[in-house]
């Protein structure tokens, strides 16, 4: 075993332990965004695609590099964007753009009984 491999192994084990420590403190309310955020983090494999592209020199490697780069980019871009979109929905108070308007629509709803329900 080379010393590089050994130090990488050490890094791996410590990162797993840090992961356990950090993740176990996240509340269940945020488990879906956290999972999708972690999903975006494994999109770091795009770095791996760049590195293999740096050494590719035959058609087979070019083709696989293209697929790997496309997969990884989809993972990383989509992961962060959708996580942000989701987290934007979590609000401490209900979104009521104009309280007066909300009142008006709810009283209108009760007048017709039907309108407000949908």
């Amino acid at each position: 075993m080379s010393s590089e491999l050994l130090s990488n192994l050490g890094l791996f084990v410590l990162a797993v332990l840090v992961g356990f420590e950090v993740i176990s403190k996240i509340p269940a309310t945020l488990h879906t965004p956290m999972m999708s955020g972690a999903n975006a983090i494994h999109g770091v494999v795009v770095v791996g695609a760049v590195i293999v592209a740096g050494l590719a020199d035959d058609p087979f490697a070019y083709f696989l590099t293209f697929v790997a780069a496309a997969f990884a980019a989809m993972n990383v871009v989509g992961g962060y964007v959708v996580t942000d979109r989701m987290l934007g929905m979590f609000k401490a108070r209900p979104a009521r753009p104009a309280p007066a308007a909300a009142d008006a629509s709810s009283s209108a709803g009760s007048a017709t009984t039907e309108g407000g329900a949908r």
Partner: protein
Amino acid sequence: MSGLEVAVRLIYLVAAVCFVLGLHLMRSPATARRGNWLSAAGMTAAIVATVALVAAGGQTSEGGTYSVTGWGWGMLLSGLAVGSFAGLYTARAVQMTAMPQLVSIFNAVGGGAAALVGIIDFVRLSGEGAVTAGFSVPVVLDVIIGSVTFSGSLIAAGKLQGWVSGAPITFKGSRALNIAAAVVALGGAAWLVAAPSGWLLVAVVIASLGFGILMVLPIGGADMPVVISLLNAFTGLAVAMAGFVIGNQILIIAGALVGASGTILTKLMADAMNRSVIAIMIGGFGTGDTASDAGAGVAGADVRKVDADDVAIQLAYATKVIIVPGYGLAAAQAQRECGELGALLTERGITVLYAIHPVAGRMPGHMNVLLAEADVPYTQLLEMDEVNPEFATCDVALVVGANDVTNPAARRPGNAISGMPILDVDQARSVIVIKRSLGHGYAGLDNELYGQPQTGMLFADAKKGLREILAAVKTLVG
């Protein structure tokens, strides 16, 4: 190491710190968005640094130098462009109810990319005859885990989307075939480490893809939260293994973090379902997607039926209401109606809380996202341990589409759900259950809650039932 390599390694370190702090900030909804941005910033830095290293012809981890050909750049950049566009489009367009599918697709492409990185590097090095065991062991692990994740996640996404039946799919000899695929993958991998060859790698890839498909097919729709979490952990591991293959530390650290997060969620979900991960993966039990075994159940005569007007009166004159949304609410897509009812009651000055069981929804925490989308403030969303003491002091508990997780039988030994963590709904002064029929839940048990004297049953689909109640409350208080 030249200055450039040192700079890149330091940027990797900064990126790793950003990932950890980003996840750390996800401990509260108030800071979570910032955390995601921090993580994205670290990611951007790592990618830019790597591109600079490769473009400048820096040193590889083996001591050679990078030299990108015109084709190399063309394929890399066009791949990145296509993938970024696809990711951006799907992330913007996806419905919140379809989040589990999207996460599954991202698991698939992440795992697939990790496997491809390993394959490309193996082919290059074996061409040079320079494959050692220290290299080929991570390659086979990367390729096996990545390929299993790729095919397994696609099947999981197909099941969630309804393209593949959500019911467990088994056929004669499927288990034997699955074991055979595992044996070929592992045997081929061992052989490959002893005597490196491209054909063995092809065999390992095919067997692993087959294993991934056969692993997920027999698992039922209701077990999907566990499966997605597990595949998320697999993807992280595959990425970490790809990091070992190409000697890249940021891949190792990020992959390990994700592997840990997926593992924790898998364990939490399995515990909340009162089943072992092994039992779920062996599968063939959890169908639950519709749970419509009508007819069976608590002796029909023992339950008290209520109508929407009764429910509306109870709700409108309560001081504290706890809403218990479950899988049925997600399946009927009734989160908007649920949020509207909660908001209406809150406006009347009633304390409204939502009791969220860990497995309500189709992936960990899914119900919270659905309700957040329906404008329910997250301060009203309480986890099981927080909300359970509240039931004793609440006037009405409104159960919408949740079954097994409210069954008091779990507190007694000797049945299918014994020991399962449940919501203490039976301690509420009055309980309303909106349910289509007295059918069994996923565990196939009678729910003793339905027979209790304080419980009223409103027989309706979650969406229809909630609309009726909403309309009735509005008439009442208007």
